[in-house]
């Protein structure tokens, strides 16, 4: 009886915290939002709502910029940088969804809500603001998506205040990048489009809280923290990639869809006229303390299915952030020789099949108001949101010039 009462009391406390958080939280589009996102409405450098700004606690690589060090906000739950509002009118980049303000359907029977959108390819640079901050030209050639101003000097603050976005709208100034695809004949092949998904259980799901009483809870669900960045996929240091987290695929006329480990494995059943895809899933468990780490990976990790029989985050990384999936798709032309296609990073492992070094980088820089929209609605109301639909009757605008085919498709490898 006493143990039951303790569990009940813990659940009651948890529920009480949730209600208190909802009562105190500023209204945002009339929807609920994660109670841990108490930093909404905080301007940069200001404190409030029970938060204490402290110096960054994560080890950061020195940069050559002269920006002041970012202010880190800590709350009772996790650390993140202070939000940076967009330097344009957010509403100017929103339209009535589908022209009518329609609300998307439920994602059921799926257990997660989903927010999805399409991007075009962006800039090609030998820059990496995570691994080589402030050191332009240091890395292998990267294909960037999202923030068009992302380069070696990018920081959270600079991403938040500059650039357009190839991912529909500058409401999402996040930067994503991966090794460029090379044709082996001196050119980069640019993907036609990139599909991006964010998915997570709703905050009301008992599996979203370690104090809910659900014995199979995944962890404590939270939004994407401001300033988070990480690398995922093939790790050059260990020579490994998380099983199932990345693969190639083929789609279109005459194609056989599948999960292929390398480009050669995929092209065996990927004829001209079809598209070859590279798919990578990011880790979704975060340690709650570090926005980066020395190897840019250890502060995040994947959920594990162990002897316990269900997916959960390890105790070292108890915070569940939305699952992020990136899929880049390239058209295959009649004159293409796919046997020569390789990623720019493959030259570091000439002993492995082309595509084996596939990896990607994620540097978040969403407008917090808009991120709250898709978190509150698409995720926390478990909706099936697509095409930049925010789930609240609003949809992100699409930049002028979006194209379903890469233009230009081939670009000389930048020297």
């Amino acid at each position, binding site marked *: 009886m006493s143990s039951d009462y303790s569990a009940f009391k813990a659940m009651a406390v948890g529920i009480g915290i949730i209600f208190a958080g909802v009562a105190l939280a500023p209204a945002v589009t009339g929807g609920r939002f994660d109670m841990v996102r108490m930093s909404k409405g905080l301007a940069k450098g200001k404190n409030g709502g029970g938060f204490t700004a402290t110096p960054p606690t994560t080890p950061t690589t020195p940069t050559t910029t002269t920006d002041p060090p970012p202010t880190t906000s800590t709350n009772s739950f996790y650390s993140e940088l202070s939000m940076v509002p967009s330097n344009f009118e957010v509403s100017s980049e929103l339209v009535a969804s589908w022209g009518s303000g329609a609300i998307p359907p439920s994602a059921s029977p799926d257990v997660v809500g989903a927010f999805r959108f399409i991007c075009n390819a962006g800039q090609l640079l030998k820059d990496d603001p995570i691994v080589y901050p402030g050191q332009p030209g240091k890395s292998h050639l990267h294909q960037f998506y999202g923030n068009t101003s992302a380069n070696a000097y990018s920081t959270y603050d600079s991403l938040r205040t500059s650039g357009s976005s190839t991912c529909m709208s500058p409401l999402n100034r996040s930067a994503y990048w991966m090794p460029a695809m090379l044709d082996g004949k001196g050119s980069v092949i640019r993907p036609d489009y990139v599909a991006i998904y964010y998915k997570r259980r709703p905050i009301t799901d008992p599996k979203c809280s370690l104090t809910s009483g659900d014995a199979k809870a995944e962890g404590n669900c939270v939004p994407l923290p401001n300033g988070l960045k990480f690398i995922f996929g093939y790790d050059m240091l260990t020579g490994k990639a998380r*099983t199932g987290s990345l693969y190639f695929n083929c789609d279109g006329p005459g194609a056989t869809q599948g999960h292929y480990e390398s480009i050669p494995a995929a092209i065996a059943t990927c004829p001209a006229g079809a598209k070859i895809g590279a798919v990578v899933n990011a880790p979704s468990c975060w340690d709650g303390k570090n926005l980066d780490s020395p190897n840019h990976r250890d502060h995040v990790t994947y959920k594990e299915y162990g002897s316990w029989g269900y997916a959960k985050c390890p105790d070292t990384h108890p915070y569940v952030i939305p699952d992020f999936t990136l899929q880049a798709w390239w058209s295959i032309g009649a004159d293409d020789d796919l046997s020569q296609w390789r990623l720019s990073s493959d030259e570091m492992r000439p002993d492995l099949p082309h595509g084996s070094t596939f990896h990607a980088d994620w540097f978040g820089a969403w407008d917090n108001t808009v991120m709250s929209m898709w978190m509150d609605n698409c995720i926390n109301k478990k909706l099936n949101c*697509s095409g930049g639909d925010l789930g609240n009757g609003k949809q992100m605008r699409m930049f002028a010039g979006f194209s379903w085919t890469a233009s230009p498709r081939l670009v000389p490898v930048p020297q």
Partner: protein
Amino acid sequence: MNRTAPTVLIAICVASLSGCSSPNPEKDQIAREGAERNALVSAAHDHPAMKGEKDAVGKPLPPLPGVDVPAPKSTSTHEHEPEHNHH
């Protein structure tokens, strides 16, 4: 396939509440992924901007380094030092 993959597939089957009785859960998973992607592409084709609604069209992109304009000159003479390359 390694020995953890069947466990993963079974867990995905359970989590998605569908396909549990399928003889080929991996094939079903691949088919679901394709359907999801096609649904996104279809939805994006139906974006108001694609339907001609000018208010739904944002600003054009600036010239993209390495694509539309030359990428900034590299400050290093070679791509990377193998001993420093951990990316």
